[in-house]
């Protein structure tokens, strides 16, 4: 049996894509909004030091049309479809850290327009982090990575988070925790399964 090892990704964040921030903000460019975004970007520079990605690779087989990972059958047709044709799967947990939540909470009380903007920046950052990670893994493995498939997508129940957290040891590895209602804290975080083909 392959031993299951959790590795850490050296999480250096790529530059911010302002277009993406605007998209998450559901706003169009304007003097006021641009100024707001620039202010917020300056403010969150120091707030992203807690970013981290932990991951592990696992063999993948299929039984009765369902994916089997670490000997466990995951009863989701949509996941099986997303992983079809792959022999290995990447399990990942990623977070930009609690600093972003602190900033959002602060401005949520003080200035909600800023909170909204920081929230959009947080969304952009966590996606950028995952993209950077996947790009590097693609290079490292010399293979193609599939889409990031997260618990709650399609018919993969949200409760699969518990399994993922247990396998990846997210709290210890990157400080990512799972609440009683399956809400992740810090809030700007992602867990996902990615097929390697």
């Amino acid at each position, binding site marked *: 049996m*392959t*031993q*299951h*090892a*959790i*590795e*850490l990704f050296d999480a250096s964040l790529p530059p911010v894509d302002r277009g993406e921030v605007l998209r998450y*903000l*559901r*706003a*169009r*460019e*304007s*003097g*006021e*909004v641009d*100024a*707001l975004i620039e*202010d917020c970007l300056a403010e969150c520079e120091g707030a992203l*030091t*807690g970013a*981290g990605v932990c991951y592990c*690779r*696992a063999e993948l087989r299929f039984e009765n049309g369902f994916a089997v990972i*670490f*000997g*466990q059958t995951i009863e989701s047709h949509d996941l099986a479809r997303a992983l079809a044709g792959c022999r290995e799967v990447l399990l990942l947990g990623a977070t930009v*850290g*609690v*600093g972003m939540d*602190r900033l959002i*909470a*602060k401005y*949520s*009380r*003080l*200035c*909600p*327009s800023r*909170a*909204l903007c920081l929230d959009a920046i947080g969304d952009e950052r966590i996606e950028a982090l995952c993209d950077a990670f996947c790009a590097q893994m693609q290079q490292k493995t010399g293979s193609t990575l599939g889409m990031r498939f997260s618990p*709650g997508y399609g018919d993969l129940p*949200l409760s699969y988070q518990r*399994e993922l*957290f*247990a*396998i990846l040891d997210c*709290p*210890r590895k990157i*400080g990512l*925790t*799972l*609440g*009683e*209602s*399956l*809400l992740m*804290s*810090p*809030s700007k975080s992602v867990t996902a399964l990615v097929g390697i083909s």
Partner: protein
Amino acid sequence: MHILEFMKEHLVLLDGGMGTLLQAKGLAAGELPERWNLAYPERITEVHRAYFDAGSHIVSTNTFGANTLHYTSAELEEIIPAAVENARRAQRETVGTQPTFVALDIGPTGRLLSPFGDLDFEDAVSIFATTVEIGVRAGVDLILIETMNDSYETKAALLAAKEHSTLPVFVSNAYGEDGKLMTGATPSVMAAMLEGLGADAIGVNCSRGPAALLPIATELVARTSRPIFLKPNAGLPHIENGRTVYDVSPEAFAECVKLAVGNGVRAVGGCCGTTPEYIRALSQAVGAMTPLPIEKKSESVVTSYASSVSFGKTPVLIGERINPTGKKRFRQALIEHDIDYVLREAFRQETNGAHVLDVNVGTPEVDEASLLCEITRELQAVCALPLQLDTADPVAMERALRVYNGKALINSVNGKKESMEQIFPLAKKYGGVVVALTLDENGIPETAQGRVEIARRILEAAAEYGIDKKDLLFDPLTLTVSADANAARVTLEAVERIRNELGCNTSLGVSNVSFGLPRREMLNSTFFSMALERGLSAAILNPDSQDMMRAYYAFCALSGSDAQCASYIAFAEKCPMPSNTTAVATESKEAVPTDGGSELQNAIRKGRCESAKKEAKRLLESVSPTDLIAHWIVPALDAVGKGFEEKRVYLPQLLMSAEAAKAAFEEVKCALLKDGSHAKARGLSVVIATVKGDIHDIGKNIVRLLLENYGFEVLDLGKDVEPARILDAARERSASLVCLSALMTTTLPAMEETVRLLHDALPQCKVAVGGAVLNGEYAHRMGADFYSADAMGAVRYAESLSGTERGK
């Protein structure tokens, strides 16, 4: 032999990793390792024994995750005693001849504490308490709290250990690559906090390899008088031929850890990836070394969750504005439970240069203990400055100290027997630096000599409680020179003598000196400069006062405590303070027409807080507050709201306008308070909350802001709110509308339950719902009266209800 006795003379070897070894023995991915204490006791004993054989003095039980979040209490009653017995058996069977001990191992819960996670602080304390109680009953020699990456959870665990056992407690944190805990604490913060809470040894473990943890361990040695321990990983893991390999060899590991021992670390072992082989290498490398003696530290430190402030070097500024005394508007905010107002006071002082914030919320109309507790929690969630908890009520003090995430300033104790008997036990239990006023049963002595004598008595009494002089900050009391020409002179002499004769730090509330005199700032700032020159360590003052800040920065530059005058220059450059106007917009791409209408309306449309505030103030000289709302503010907001509904204006712009309107409202409120009348709400009382289980509240806060802007009286219950609490509040307020928000599918049942509860008990009260996972159909199915897709929808619904009510 007692472990602490043994530790005085000997270097202590701890054990290494457990998880990696159990994986090698067949533990599956995601399987709970603690179950193996019962399923495969011999395998666990084997691991412990290998560590004892390799030279470990202390092994820790296989109970890292043995808590009530992962197991039932009944399971724990079997698992923990079995784990202890597995270690005890190894202890009996080892071939090692060294003295051996068994530690009850306690790891983090895996959940983040509130407010950023959903685990309440006291619930965390209870979870740890259960593990501690069972472990202590099973018979261990000490408790090891380890791998904690959050200061607040560390405090919960340590409190539980101290409250439910008398055993020595070793506490160790996992630091990230930036040298801080995941939630922001530096080693110096943890050193002060853990020493204050009575940890018997303080450490660093897990995280990374020994080279990366060496500077952290060394800093801990420099910061506390407690023994320091180090348990690094064997470097970083990677996969080689299907096997996990760590990149630091046992020999390299031992060589590096040896350096730490040379720097004063007194106990060493390993964490992830380390094996008995590493401990054997360690034993060979350091076994013959004698630990360095512990130097007693005299640095006086308070901390928040993230930063520490030390007294005795650069003078410390304690912001005094969070205090209702003599402040009508602040008192009003406390009575109305307007926490945001308090937070704004905090942020302004922080921006203006305060190092610590005094927090006093005592006013007869409120339950001080609850409010102090609540505001302490709110402040420490979003503000990184240490707090000075300021209350005369010992119950309020204890509750606030308990929830405080750091080492607080405690304001205050005095020379009266009763005061010392109330405050010192709290300071001993929770840690903190205590402000000590030099007065006693006979009042304030008129001479400096008399005040120094009281200080000396307080010092002696504190020592009896085990409180060191570094944890006292003497306030020799400022009296006004208008009543006694010698008042300032006596205070200044006492400052100097307490510093020179007792070697203690001092603090003064500066502004009392000018009471009853005109142009007080002139006297205050000069007195402040004089006191600083006599060695004052800290002052409680108003950081918004230009005069005081000028005196402070000038003193620092002139006394050699401001290298290259950097702080002075930075202050001078922004002096006088620029206004806080943000977002100066270009004139192109106007989404909202700005032609016509007053300056105030333009400011609101363009979202300029400062000018909205200024204009409102100007207009209030000639316009009545109610007219200002009806004819200026609301129409301007409405124009922006319409723009939003017609999709010409986007949410960030709508919010910026709402914030500008709020700034104008603040002026209206002050004007009304001056008149002695109250703001008239628009008939409709609204209660708003994010439902149980949900901890994200951006959407809810947006709805609240807009509702308030439209003149509705809104009670915000916050996030993660129990259905019953929402019902109670709605009933108490006779609310006509309750707004509920939910983000997760998993919290919809809580929303549904809340709706049902409200409808059953208060049929006349309408319930509006919103949030990312909802739609109109689902909202209807759960019985809500209204579903709002965005914030304006909620406003329009409230307006329609308000119209109906008026029509009645």
